[in-house]
């Protein structure tokens, strides 16, 4: 049985990736199981300089999902390269550096710096709903996506994944713009902008007022968007948004993704990634599928 997938020239041992921001730099979950189990780890969103993030509360549960407003707390690119990356390189999983910035220059500088490091791929997050400048502002306009992707590509010597925001009217426009700009792969979806109010105090639950919705509740939106994007591009797609079980992963691959990322599910079940991988194997055995790549995009729409 083949579980290997190839994303923009980088071979992953299996299609399981950790979703940025839910898995830190792998240290904590690495105590539960070996990171060798993963296809790749996508690390916490990095910025050029360290960031302290938003005030608490930063998380709440909603029906079947969660809202978060962490706001990219991270130690910055240099600290990542110096202290975290060497640890991650001890494992067979590939390392994806997730980048966020306030300006196009920030992204370019980060892409340049990270390209000189041992990371395997770069993921450009132009879809974070929890920061004021940059972030999602870059990801909701096709022209801006085209422009920023083109610029960052000049500095990226590693495959560049563009992470798309679901907070748009037409996801295919955004995907096409990223492809035109030279993206090597796409990942989707980031969180959906949401809000929750405490009816007793009449105050928003998150100090940031709004936050990003993730978890099982967003899966149908993710599946739909992946399906639509698959119709308009041949770029590899990393699908994410609510994947909690092996069946969810299969559904997302049928819709068109080549690999899947697991985020919120880790919180409930620290072994989620391992269990999801097992679930994929079970499905393949049951349906006599020898190669995991044979599932991608195989939804039948008459």
């Amino acid at each position: 049985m083949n579980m290997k997938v190839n994303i923009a020239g980088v071979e992953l041992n299996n299609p399981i990736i950790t979703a940025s921001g839910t898995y830190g730099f792998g240290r904590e979950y690495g105590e539960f199981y070996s990171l060798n189990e993963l296809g790749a780890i996508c690390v916490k969103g990095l910025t050029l300089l360290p960031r302290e993030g938003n005030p608490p509360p930063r998380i709440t549960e909603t029906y079947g999902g969660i809202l978060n407003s962490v706001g990219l707390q991270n130690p910055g690119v240099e600290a990542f390269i110096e202290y975290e990356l060497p640890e991650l390189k001890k494992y067979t999983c590939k390392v994806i550096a997730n980048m966020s910035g306030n300006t196009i220059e920030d992204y370019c500088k980060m892409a340049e710096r990270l390209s000189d490091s041992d990371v395997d791929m770069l993921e450009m997050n132009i879809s974070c709903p929890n920061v004021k400048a940059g972030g999602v502002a870059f990801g909701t306009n096709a022209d801006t996506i085209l422009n920023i992707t083109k610029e960052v590509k000049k500095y990226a010597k590693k495959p560049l994944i563009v992470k798309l925001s679901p907070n748009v009217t037409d996801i295919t426009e955004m995907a096409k713009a990223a492809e035109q700009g030279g993206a090597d792969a796409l990942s989707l979806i980031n969180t959906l902008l949401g809000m929750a109010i405490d009816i007793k105090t009449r105050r928003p639950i998150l100090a940031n007022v709004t936050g990003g919705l993730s978890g099982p509740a967003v899966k149908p939106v993710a599946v739909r968007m992946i399906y639509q994007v698959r119709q308009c591009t041949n770029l590899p797609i990393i699908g994410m948004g609510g994947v909690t079980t092996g069946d969810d992963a299969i559904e997302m691959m049928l819709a068109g993704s080549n690999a899947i990322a697991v985020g919120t599910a880790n919180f409930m079940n620290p072994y989620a990634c391992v269990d999801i991988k097992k679930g994929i194997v079970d499905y393949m055995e049951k349906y006599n599928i020898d190669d995991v790549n044979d599932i991608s995009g195989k939804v039948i729409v008459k």
Partner: protein
Amino acid sequence: MSHDVYKCKVISKKEIAPNIIDVTVESKEIASAAMAGQFLHVKCGDDISMPLRRPISICDAEDDKLRFIFEVKGRGTKNLLLIDDEIDIMGPLGTPFTIDNDKYKNPAVIGGGIGTYPLFKLTKELDNPTVYLGFRSEAQVTLEDEFNSVCDMTVVATDDGSYGYNGYAIDLLKGKIENDVVDIIYACGPKPMLKAVKALAEANNIPCQISLEERMGCGIGACLTCSCETKTEGTWKYKRVCKNGPVFWSTEVVL
């Protein structure tokens, strides 16, 4: 690794005050590793409809028995109330209380409401602590006899004066500090109480450990959602309550 997820058999479960549920489960692994002040991340529903675990403090741990006490509040704890066979628990988690019986000969312990439960194991392990327990009213007073059985001095206060001292527990602690020696304070309870304890301790130069609450995701330090504000500048201005805490030195944090 000192923590993991376990399916823990429920040994006993009873309502000890209105909506306050006292639970003992079987878990040799968690009970033997548990330290006073640490917490459990408890699964209250299925992964799909309820993606987050709920943090609940360890009240006591002995041999293979693990005890926690929770208040029924929202969706999660309402559901937890219904689980009678096995509870899925991740733990023990977080930084425990610092216990140093050689250095601190006169510890004071102060708790408010559900914040009194995490102090039970601590009280058992301290030499000669004075314990102040504050509750809203007589109906909420719990565990008084048990605290009394593990330390020489437990004083209960109620906000409405319906039981014990008429007023806030912190006033009792203030009196103790004025008239006697207190060389360390341990506190857990509602934020206003913690603020007052922090101010009192710092005004009197008494080292003070407080246990904080914050909404949590992963519970193990990976997601950075449980942050509390500290006096550190920069990236770690916000520390993780689940990993760096829940117990902090009062001087570390901004409340």
